[in-house]
């Protein structure tokens, strides 16, 4: 099925008769301004047919604005010394002319498949639209073509899926449908904006594979990503962006293995893969007190890790089972968390990780089983008796913002936590608030801000400060860094590590990101379909997995890297 793509791509197809060597996308001194303020400036790169270039950088660095400018969708004022696709000049095109470029010449695979597909229209219709507008094919041919493209992207049962709407498809299938829609017109250039964000390891691999094959078949691929693992596998060259400018570009291996610019070095260092437990990920940043180099272990830290079997059991679960109707979300889960250690809980989405966390927090009651907090019964108790001991067990969540009262300033949120809810008046507690903010690396001025006005990393720091305020022994961390940029993720992970050492905290760390879990955990529990299929020392589980599910999970993740 790959042959049909090759026949229509510019590398082998000579329908448009352009000379070899001039093909591809040329960007020289691209500048995009909004209301007179530059969002992107002096961006230059080349993208040849059959090549993949990755735009890499934090959110706000201008990656997406750049990509949208190449599609005439930026919404700002675009200027460039040269902006051309093959020999077509893309500067100063009218909206009408752009419509002839978008789709047939440059395709876009958007970030969020859930919102990028019309929920009311079958995916086959989306593909059909593109074909109807840009080709002269008849209805039967278009139908044929749609099935062909869906099969090319690895959509199972394309004839059935074609008639389904985005709501009826899983995240992975939706992403494939989006790619199919972009490929239907066989564009010369495909722009993929964070195509693997929020996908499971396995789906992630399929999407990367598909884009790699597209590149091998002669399409020029521009990938926008902050996932350096995916970038290493896919990209021939990398363009690193920061604050709207290109700071460094070059061949993938050179950029990732020998980065020249300090920012690129920070970006590469922040990736948790292959960094042992207790080593720093962030360069500089407000949490640094002992300015250690990244990747280096802090002196003496392994000795302080009380991961032997003698330290106090702070949280224990015995045979937890939770059913919703006939569906068993959590099935006979037992785990033990000791003071000062981190237990990682991994598994695909829907494997029961979050339900387990809710049972441990006492937000939901198990059908069977028992939870003990510091050796005393916890979950069979009524909420009234649990409440005085809730200070011992804190939690931080993936979406910090929605865990705050939007009407309360950071200062009031922290006073509420410090005084066990007795007051939200800041005055008498200003010193404590400043100390708490300093502990999580935030300036005292944050106190008067509303959480909505803070960045993602700052919000998660406030959430950590709030969780620390009542002096807990255990923190449940439910995907705490999953929605953060890799450099911010590194800072938050380092902060959590520091706080654990300082306060002897025990963490239950839930994540679908195996690299993150491997970096932070002393021990790991692997969940699948509500059961813990394997549990043990982190390195043992990752290097010699005993259960077939774990092996599959690791294989999918490593081939995606």
């Amino acid at each position: 099925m790959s042959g049909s793509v090759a026949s229509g791509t510019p590398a082998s197809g000579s329908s448009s008769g352009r000379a070899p060597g001039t093909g591809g996308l040329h960007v020289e001194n691209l500048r995009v301004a909004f209301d007179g303020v530059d969002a992107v400036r002096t961006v230059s790169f080349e993208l040849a047919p059959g090549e993949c270039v990755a735009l890499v950088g934090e959110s706000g660095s201008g990656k997406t604005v750049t990509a949208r400018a190449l599609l005439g969708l930026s919404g700002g004022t675009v200027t460039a010394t040269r902006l051309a696709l093959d020999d077509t000049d893309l500067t100063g095109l009218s909206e009408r002319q752009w419509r002839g470029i978008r789709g047939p010449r440059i395709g876009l695979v958007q970030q969020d498949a859930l919102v990028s597909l019309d929920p009311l229209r079958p995916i086959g219709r989306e593909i059909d639209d593109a074909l109807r507008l840009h080709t002269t094919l008849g209805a039967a041919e278009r139908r044929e073509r749609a099935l062909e493209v869906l099969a090319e992207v690895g959509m199972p049962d394309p004839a059935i899926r074609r008639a389904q709407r985005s709501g009826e498809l899983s995240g992975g299938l939706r992403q494939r449908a989006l790619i199919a829609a972009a490929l239907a017109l066989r564009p010369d250039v495909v722009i993929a904006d964070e195509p693997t964000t929020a996908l499971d390891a396995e789906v992630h691999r399929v999407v990367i594979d598909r884009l790699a094959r597209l590149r091998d078949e002669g399409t020029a691929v521009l990938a926008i990503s902050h996932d350096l693992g995916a970038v290493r596998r896919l990209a021939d060259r990398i363009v690193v962006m920061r604050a709207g400018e290109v700071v460094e570009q070059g061949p993938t291996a050179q950029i990732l293995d020998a980065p020249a610019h300090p920012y690129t070095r920070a970006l590469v260092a922040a990736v948790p893969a292959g960094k042992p437990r207790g080593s720093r990920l962030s360069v500089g940043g407000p949490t640094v007190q002992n300015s250690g180099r990244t990747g280096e272990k802090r002196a003496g830290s392994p000795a302080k890790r009380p991961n032997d079997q003698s330290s106090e059991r702070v949280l224990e679960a015995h045979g937890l089972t939770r059913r919703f109707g006939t569906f068993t979300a959590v099935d006979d889960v037992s785990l033990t968390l000791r003071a000062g250690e981190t237990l990682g809980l991994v598994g695909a989405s829907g494997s029961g990780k979050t339900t387990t966390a809710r049972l441990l927090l006492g937000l939901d009651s198990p059908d069977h089983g028992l939870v003990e907090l510091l050796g005393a019964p916890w979950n069979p108790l009524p909420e009234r008796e649990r409440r005085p001991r809730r200070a011992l067990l804190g939690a931080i969540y993936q979406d910090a913002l929605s865990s705050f009262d939007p009407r309360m300033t950071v200062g009031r949120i922290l006073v509420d936590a410090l005084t066990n809810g007795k007051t939200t008046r800041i005055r008498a507690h200003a010193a404590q608030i400043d100390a708490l903010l300093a502990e999580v690396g935030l300036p005292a001025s944050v106190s008067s801000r509303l959480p909505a006005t803070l960045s993602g990393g700052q919000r998660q720091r406030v959430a950590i400060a709030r969780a620390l305020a009542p002096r807990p022994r255990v923190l449940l961390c439910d995907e705490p860094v999953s929605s953060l940029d890799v450099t911010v993720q590194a800072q938050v992970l380092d902060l959590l590590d520091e706080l654990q050492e300082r306060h002897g905290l025990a963490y239950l760390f839930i994540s679908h990101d195996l690299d993150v879990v491997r970096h932070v955990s002393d021990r790991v529990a692997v969940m699948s379909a509500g059961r813990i299929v394997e549990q043990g020392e982190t390195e043992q589980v990752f290097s010699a997995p005993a259960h077939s599910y774990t092996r599959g999970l690791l294989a999918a993740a490593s081939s995606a890297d």
Partner: protein
Amino acid sequence: MTILPELPVLPAAAPTRAAEWRSRVMAPRVVAGAVLLGVLAAAVAPGLLAPGDPLAVHPVDAFSAPSLAHPFGTDDSGRDLYTRVVHGASASLLIGVAATLIGTLLGLVLGIAAGVGTRLTDAAVSRVLEVLFALPGLLLALVIIAFAGPGPIPATLAVGLATAPGYARIFRTRIRAVRSSEMVEAARVLGRGPLTLLVRHVLPNALAPVVVLATLGVGQAIVWASSLSYLGLGSPPPAPEWGAMLEAGRTYLQIAPWMTVFPGLAIVATAAATTVVGRAFAGAGRR
């Protein structure tokens, strides 16, 4: 719960967008604000805008068309319609505001009972609300007046009671949504009891839009109160009330249309202006 993606900003130049925003969004708001200020001035100090007596009868001048002496014309008893419309503002506005207050307060009580109470209270209140919803609001008001008798105070009560179910339903839904939000769950994890959760987090967040809703409701209440007066169930005839004036002019629609046109315009303008201003508040609250 956003289903649709945020639309990309269209590639229009900034100044034209600002100009368009001024003409399409701000202009109606300025006009509405001016109308509302005028109506408020008429309600507070009618004597300043129209020094005459709204009840003074001059049979000689009956059915005069609008002129310089009588800008809105006169009615069947020769009363100056401009004076009557100005003096009628206080009655209409008072009924509108009072009815909305009654409606929102009652709605708050019912909504909180359903949103906060046990499953049984919620079910009981919700069923009552559903029955009330089955009747058109104005019909409900008529039923209430049938029991209480006509007059401006029963009319106010009736409109207030008739609008309460709508408010109650909105507050119940909002309270339910906030109660099950992550923010309240996070507060529970911190050990907050049910009363603290309710007073500190649930009610303030759920009831924040009450002012906006009430502003939007005043316009509707004014129309309903006027409707009741038009049916002869509100203020009695000689009083300068806009609905009652409409009813008085109905008989002479062919020979003296100004008798209905001007009080009607006053009702429409006031209701529309409060709604536009209310929507502006609602928009500001969302941002």
